[in-house]
């Protein structure tokens, strides 16, 4: 019974590592292949976040019996990643739009087009 649980844990660790690294590979391919900076942010922001959750889950499962405190730290690291990565991506996307980074010509919906027409010049004139 004990060894069956160990085998199941090993299988879960292996699956988490494989899925996480493949998601990281998807993020890398998207970062190279996608046309403009917003699309690249989409690839890096989402695939990298889910991939790193799964990759942190692997040591959390692996050290669950031997070092329980490390498991707690790993789960807290997952929460911390979930809080910070989307925030950083949002800040960067907002900064790109404000600075007028070009939007790909295939973009169908640009809801901020009327909101920020002359925002960067105003902003930079003040500083």
């Amino acid at each position, binding site marked *: 019974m004990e060894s069956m649980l160990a085998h199941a844990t090993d299988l879960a660790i292996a699956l988490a590592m494989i899925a996480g690294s493949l998601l990281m590979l998807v993020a890398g391919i998207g970062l190279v292949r996608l046309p403009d900076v917003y699309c690249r942010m989409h690839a890096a922001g989402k695939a990298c976040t889910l991939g790193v959750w799964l990759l942190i889950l*692997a040591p959390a499962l692996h050290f669950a019996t031997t070092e329980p405190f490390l498991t707690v730290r790993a789960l807290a690291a997952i929460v911390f*990643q979930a809080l910070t990565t989307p925030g950083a991506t949002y800040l960067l996307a907002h900064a790109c739009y404000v*600075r007028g980074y070009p939007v790909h010509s295939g973009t169908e919906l640009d809801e901020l087009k009327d909101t920020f027409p002359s925002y960067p010049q105003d902003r930079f004139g003040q500083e």
Partner: protein
Amino acid sequence: MSALVAHTADVCMVVLFLSAALCLYRLVIGPGAADRAVAADALITIVVGMICVLSVRWNSGLYFDAVWILTLIGFLGSAAIARYLAQGRIF
């Protein structure tokens, strides 16, 4: 640690190196500063994943604090670059 986990960790390190190389390519050729910031953020996240895989492979939790530190540095770096791009100053 079973042989299954050890071999999977080796293969995963190769895949992670491949994605890190793709991120480095975008970091070098990226047309604007924001492309490079996005690529650097993704690269830091990939390094965090590498640390996790290696801590399983070496069966040691010694390097796990680096996960926290790199996450914090990645967020602060991206936020600082975004603020600099949007407002022309950081503080």
